């Protein structure tokens, strides 16, 4: 029996002819569509429309226009001189996604998906959000195009991201509190999927990361690769060569895949994803799905997941609401197994330390998510020669985290 299953799996792997994902949405053995039948036709429509749009010059020109004129792209690739000096190692460049309109990389994806939703004739947008960055980015795009928008957010996240909660409301979005399960991103995703089950005919669901069923991991990746494409062009202009290493934080993994993807073909460039190590390696203390998880299915795709021996999703923890998620995008699982990218983790405390250090040395307050990437850079950079180059994806601004960090430091704002 097991031999039989294995054969079928091997056949599926062999169907993969080098294009990732393959036609059925598999990244090697990962990915796929594990979703109720009710939603399948919507996913088929989405995939069809997306592939048409992707090759449509008019769609791309429109998207480029808004990314340039409204989001403010390209974002700078900034040489962090004082951080470089302090670590006494390689040159450290920061890809400033925090300077995008709404303060994070999330808007690259929501602009693309809102344009797509309008192409499909959908009048209502829904989204899930953890840190609130994706929620704000969705609310912003929806406001700009005059679409109705509902965002699901866990109650625990509403508490620790109250600024983003308020911003969404200002932007005319209805924020729906999620009281089930752990009251965080995972549960907000469940609720958004349930909403979509009932509203699929007139609603488009904008998933905020490279997770979920096919075509989301592919589509969100494609919208985020602008980060990597710009980085490649910028570093070639600045240094006339590619970086030695790219470091990005990984929750669902959209900013990481966005900056990694154009460099996957350049095997000399080391790709490092940094997960949330939380407060320890026991169950419930961290959110390091790739480092500590197993293959499993969550929210519509096969990937590394934190779960118990009976297949129930484990509790997770991270100080960063955007990384507090028990799964990860299937393409990261693929890159891990293919050994093309390496995944590590840093603790809550290390992230807070990096948050502070970046603020003092560079005058940039990074999001707690991006602080994980900086924290690993602080540990890793001193081991490299001075003639090397590291690019860190500074995926978002830390404005939203100020009160949470203050609380942790024993202050109140």
């Amino acid at each position, binding site marked *: *029996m*097991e031999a*039989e*299953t294995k054969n*079928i*799996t091997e056949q599926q792997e062999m169907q993969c002819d080098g294009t990732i994902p393959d036609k*059925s949405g598999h990244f090697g053995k990962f990915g*796929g*569509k*594990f*979703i*109720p*039948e*009710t*939603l*399948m*036709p*919507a996913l*088929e429509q989405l995939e069809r429309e997306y592939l048409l749009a992707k090759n449509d010059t008019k769609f791309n020109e429109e998207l480029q226009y808004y990314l340039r004129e409204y989001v403010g792209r390209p974002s700078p690739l900034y040489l962090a001189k004082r951080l470089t000096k302090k670590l006494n190692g390689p040159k450290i460049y920061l890809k400033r996604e925090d300077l995008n309109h709404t303060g994070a990389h999330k808007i690259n994806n929501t602009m693309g998906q809102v344009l797509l939703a309008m192409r499909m004739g959908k009048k209502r947008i829904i989204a899930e959000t953890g840190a609130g960055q994706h929620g704000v980015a969705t609310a912003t795009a929806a406001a700009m195009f005059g679409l109705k928008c509902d965002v699901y957010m866990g109650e625990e996240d509403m508490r620790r991201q109250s600024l983003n909660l308020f911003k969404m409301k200002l932007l005319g979005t209805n924020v729906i509190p999620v009281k*089930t*399960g752990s009251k965080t991103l*995972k*549960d907000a995703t*469940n609720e958004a*999927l*349930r909403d979509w*089950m*009932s509203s*699929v*005919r007139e609603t488009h669901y904008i998933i905020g990361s490279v997770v979920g069923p096919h075509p989301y991991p592919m589509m969100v990746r494609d919208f985020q690769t602008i980060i990597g494409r710009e980085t490649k062009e910028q570093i070639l202009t600045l240094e006339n060569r590619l970086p030695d290493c790219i470091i990005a934080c990984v929750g669902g993994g959209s900013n990481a895949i966005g900056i990694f993807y154009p460099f996957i073909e350049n095997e000399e460039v080391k790709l490092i994803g940094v997960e949330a190590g939380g407060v320890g390696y026991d169950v419930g203390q961290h959110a390091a799905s790739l480092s500590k998880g197993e*293959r*499993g*299915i*969550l*929210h*519509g795709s*096969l990937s590394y*997941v934190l*779960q118990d*021996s*009976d*297949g*129930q*999703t484990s509790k997770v923890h991270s100080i960063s609401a955007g990384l507090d998620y028990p799964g990860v995008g299937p393409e990261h699982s693929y890159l891990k197994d293919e050994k093309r990218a390496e995944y590590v983790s840093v603790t809550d405390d290390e992230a807070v330390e990096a948050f502070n250090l970046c603020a003092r040395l560079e005058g940039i307050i990074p999001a707690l998510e991006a602080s994980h990437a900086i924290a690993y850079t602080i540990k890793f950079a001193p081991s490299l020669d001075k003639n090397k180059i590291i690019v860190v994806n500074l995926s978002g601004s830390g404005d939203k985290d100020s009160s949470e960090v203050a609380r942790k430091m024993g202050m109140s704002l």
Partner: protein
Amino acid sequence: MNRIDKKFQQLKERGETAFIPFITAGDPSIEITKSLILDFENRGADLIELGFPFSDPIADGPVIQSSYFRALEGGVKTDDILEMVKGIRKTSEIPIVCMISHSILYKHGCGKFLERAADAGIDGATIPDLPIEEAESIIAIANQVGFKVVCFIAPTTTDSRMKIIVEKSQGFLYYISVVGITGERNTLSDDLAVNIKKIKSRTDLPVALGFGISTPEQARVAGQIADGVIVGSAIMREIDKYAEGEGKLLVDSVGRFLGEFIESSKGRI
């Protein structure tokens, strides 16, 4: 012959609609689940849909999700559910179809799980998060152990998908009566009869109707157009009402509640 096929054949000969109650295994306890199944059988339920609790169900509404949550809080594990079914098989031949998330199946190993489930006396499975595209290998394994993978058709299902699903489904077809999640609703959709007729023109498999059937009157309407009527959330809500009290009272009360649904779906009242 598999118990599911046998049951539908008997019902067909009698010209009767199948009544299929859904219950969550382990809510409020695995012992009560067992008593309920045996009681439901005595009252005339034809098949049982047995929910394996999952931490992150996406096809289910708040009532069933809460029942999963309570069952998991109570500590129920897959092994306990399989043992319970083994116990039922000592005295009962009622067909049991489990509703199980692919997440749990995958974790246990699909082949291994299906073998163990069949061995325990489970006759088939509905896997709400497993669309037909991803189901092929599981259906192949199911065929080897005489297990039935019951597939879903939704109101949104396109013609081309329906064609594949009716070919692949085993035992019966589960028609989702509404665009949405499980849970009670005041009305049933108008195009139900048309859709079911369309499915039946393409297959000899029985078609059972579920999602949103919450009153005996709706069960009666459903029973007139489908070969089977599945009721879940309404039962789980009733179970929750008595969860704090004594087990016998719960089983009696829920059983009585069910009785009216059974009679209505079979067109007797």
